[in-house]
């Protein structure tokens, strides 16, 4: 009798394993490409951001709305400016509700099934019509999200030439 029960339990295990394998194959992979693209340049370490981004945002939002503190570091606008491209290559607008799930926030939030409330009110993509240099500066002529360098503006050129002449005299 114990042999039979062993066989039964073994069979059960095999059945469970095949079921699990079947389930595993059915889970879609999250689109993590947008999230990974800018991870190294973020204002906080990746692991910290992954866990605590809403804590940072909540603290900052109260400081901004109630006390008028408008620093860039944990501002939602700056998250969006850096992590979200306003349009795809075909020119269509990137929104967090899109089926493609290529919006930075939506790519992960839809995968884990956590509702995104921010963008009911906040803009979910940078606005470049009136502000072409919407991304914050990394150096004098490179901006976040732009691999290619943009035209340096006049002030930067002046500053550069000044520092160069100073270097030459020294």
């Amino acid at each position, binding site marked *: 009798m114990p042999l039979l029960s062993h066989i039964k339990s073994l069979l059960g295990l095999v059945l469970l394993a095949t079921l699990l394998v079947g389930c595993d194959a059915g889970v879609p992979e999250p689109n993590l490409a947008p999230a990974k693209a800018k991870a190294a340049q973020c204002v906080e370490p990746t692991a910290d951001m992954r866990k605590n981004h809403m804590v940072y945002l909540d603290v900052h*939002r109260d400081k901004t709305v109630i006390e008028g*503190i408008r620093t860039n570091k944990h501002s939602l*606008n700056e998250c969006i400016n850096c992590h979200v491209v306003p349009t795809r290559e075909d020119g269509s607008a990137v929104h967090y509700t899109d089926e493609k799930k290529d919006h930075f926030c939506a790519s992960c939030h839809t995968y884990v099934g956590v509702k995104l409330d921010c963008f009911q*009110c*906040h*803009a979910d993509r940078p606005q470049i019509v009136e502000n072409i240099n919407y991304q914050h500066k990394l150096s004098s002529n490179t901006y976040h999200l732009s691999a290619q360098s943009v035209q340096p503006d006049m002030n930067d050129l002046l500053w550069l030439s000044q520092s160069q002449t100073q270097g030459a005299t020294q």
Partner: protein
Amino acid sequence: MSQINAYRRKFMATLGGVAVGGLASSVILRTVQAGDVPAKPADQPVSNQVRWGMLIDVNRLTDGGASMVEACKREHGWGNDPKARPEQQAQWMRTVKVTDKLTKYSFTLPVMCQHCEEPPCVDVCPTGASMKRADGIVQVNKHICIGCRYCMMACPYKARSFVHESLTDQRPHSPRGIGTVESCNLCVHRVDQGQLPACVEAAPNAVIFGDLNDPNSRISQAMKALGGSQIRADLSLNTGVRYLGL
């Protein structure tokens, strides 16, 4: 006797109004000055040492404030919500035409949130979303607004609107969304950076913006010389938005 006194007071007030109208057009209002809003460091909280206010000379508004309303629409992106009926559209600022029944004399003035010192909208809010900042700006903290619209009922100036529909592509500096109440916030995002509100920039010859607490500011000097009447002064709300030539 009290009736006579009331009549006298009214007469004197009218005279004063006429005098103010004459003065205003000649003396005070120059173009907007950069020093009206000193820039605040971004990491510093606003303080109650300042109280922001606005003085609008109705006689010098050539278009009755229509350009101010347009500037507000552009700045905050309201007034064109795709699914709203005309009477549902948000209205942060509007022009109101006033006509004297007897003389038929009429003028138009822009009306928006008056940024009361004692705001009724803040009194009635059940969640604390309707709030007054330390520097006197009255606004809605939409993060905790539940959309009950008590504040819309309480406001004697009809300054608040409700968003009925889902919106996309809002202005990044001016979030607005379904289920929340909204109103003029004196362009907080601009004032915090040392800029003037959008409507003030649109009517630089007719509007002064500045600190009501500073006796040397241009707006305080102008109000000391010329007065500055409140709409519904009988409610004793001590509004931050004042008018000349009403």
